[in-house]
């Protein structure tokens, strides 16, 4: 197991390096620069700014400057938010997205797996159809529709919850972002759980357990659930990364100040270091959680050995 983990870490380094290189050059090949605005700056000022950020040098030099900073853990200054470094911006916004994300993840996992199991055990009954119809609502209602509908219902009509803001993550400020964030994941998790649970319930070892006369809850929780969760877990790895790195929709509608809006705005404004910072964060988390999924697989499935 230890050799497996260290092998995964060693493999991750070249992957990350390629990720950084490709996204750096792609980002810099996009037309436009962070300082083109509607009101053109005087050429002398522009030249000074470009010199300060090394933008007047060839891209390859900029790349090595960036790598140099990165080795010291410095993601560089933001091109858009003057006086802020990317490290500061990420340190400010990532905890917000992560908190929304972790709650949404737990909610999605509980409801999703629950719905999936209920639907699978009563396959093709009205219960199956209504539970899955409910879960599928999350797929068909995009969250940029759900978010304004939530605000309309919870804040404008009923005054139950504050319409936006963060306030250090007090729970009234968390409810709507978590609803908007978790619905689409509930649907995906429920579908995958249902599919694999149906398959597991038809397998031979479940028939044996039934023939032994085991009570139903023990068949489900002790025998069926573990193998049925394998496909769910391989979905959960990437999903967890997606969910904790935030969503621009949630940030825009609820004004939570998470990392999602920084990424989109950064890309639109050519804030090179912002986009690079978030890309590196997401890439690292993706690699990390894929490795965790592999380890979990080995823990759950005794057939897999590394």
């Amino acid at each position, binding site marked *: 197991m230890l050799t497996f983990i260290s092998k995964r870490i060693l493999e991750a380094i070249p992957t990350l390096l*390629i990720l950084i290189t*490709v996204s750096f050059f792609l980002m810099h090949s996009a037309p436009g620069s962070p300082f083109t605005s509607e009101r053109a700056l005087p050429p002398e000022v522009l030249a000074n700014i470009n010199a300060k950020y090394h933008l007047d040098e060839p891209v390859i030099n900029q790349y090595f400057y960036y790598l140099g900073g990165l080795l010291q853990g410095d993601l560089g200054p933001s091109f858009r938010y003057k006086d802020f470094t990317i490290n500061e911006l990420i340190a400010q916004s990532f905890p917000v997205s992560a908190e929304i994300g972790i709650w949404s993840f737990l909610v999605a996992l509980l409801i999703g797996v629950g719905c999936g199991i209920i639907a699978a055990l009563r396959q093709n009954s009205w219960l199956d159809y209504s539970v899955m119809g409910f879960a*599928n609502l999350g797929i*068909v209602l*995009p969250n940029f*529709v759900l978010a304004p509908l939530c605000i309309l219902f919870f804040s*404008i009509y009923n005054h139950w919850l504050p319409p936006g803001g963060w306030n250090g993550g007090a729970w009234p400020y968390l409810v709507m972002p978590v609803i908007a964030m978790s619905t689409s994941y509930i649907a995906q998790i429920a579908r995958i759980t249902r599919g694999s649970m149906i398959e597991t319930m038809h397998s031979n070892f479940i028939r044996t357990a039934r023939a032994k006369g085991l009570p139903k809850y023990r068949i489900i929780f002790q025998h069926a659930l573990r193998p049925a969760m394998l496909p769910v877990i391989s979905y959960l790895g990437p999903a967890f990364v997606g969910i904790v790195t935030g969503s*621009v929709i949630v940030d825009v509608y609820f004004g939570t100040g998470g990392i999602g809006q920084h990424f989109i705005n950064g*890309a639109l404004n050519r804030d090179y270091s912002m986009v690079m910072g978030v890309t590196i964060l997401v890439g690292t988390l993706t690699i990390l959680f894929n490795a965790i999924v592999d380890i979990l697989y080995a823990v759950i499935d005794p057939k897999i050995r590394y």
Partner: protein
Amino acid sequence: MITTKDKVQAVEQFAEKVVEVEGRSLWQDARRRFFSNHAAVTSLIILAIIAAIALIGPFLSQWNYDDIDWEALSDISVLGRPNIENGHYFGTDTLGRDIFVRTMQGGQISLLVGIMGSFVAIIIGTLYGATSGYIGGRVDSVMMRFLEILNSFPFMFFVIILMTLFGRHIFLIFVAIGAISWLDMARIVRGQTLSLKNKEYIEAAYACGVSTPKIILRHIVPNVLGIVVVYATLLVPNMILLESFISFLGLGVQEPMTSWGALISEGAQNMEIAIWQLAWPLGFLVVTLFCFNFLGDGLRDALDPKDR
């Protein structure tokens, strides 16, 4: 001798009977199972109707999708309401344009983006996965590592970069979306290929001297088609949603053309005064996505070889 003649006759008669009992192919089997799934068949019919309305609808109205009704423009929240008499069956948007025609025209774009995007993703994913899985060895591990790297990019990063590189042309949008959505497809096809490549008929083809590209195209790809079809129907709604997300960011279709996503994000801004601007396109989108999901589930039940 007589007995032998009898036996020959008996065998001939039996053979005639045997011919009548035809074997069922995988696809016939799948079709039978698919048509016994009512939810999926209903979804297919509804989808066909929606597609037909989206194509024919614009000809049934006196308005064009970019016509501005100056009269309705004076007071949208009253005169812009859905009204049969002045031809605005679904009402008008804030600029006095007819929502009915715009929903139909947006439907054409959304469905086109969904189907073409999935098509691009399916072609790349299937060929990539089948090649990687069939050749195996070092080629396989290089190709899979490449896929892993692509996978660790944030998805929106690609979308935005491709948008800024290629501009806002609608066809480039779906080619771009398709070109980055094939990763899962490739992985699924590779998995299937791995289990297919040791089958006797592949070995037979190899022994006959069939070239590698021909084995992949003629023998591997047709046999993974079932799972590809299932995945494609589940990919289309994702594409439509992604397009609407991009429209929400203001990067989608160029005005005055529109898509369901663009209409919904406009409608969501005015939902307190003019709910019809949100309700109609949202209704069409939700029904379409529901139908594609049920269709995909029905196809999976019909085609998934694991379910035998």
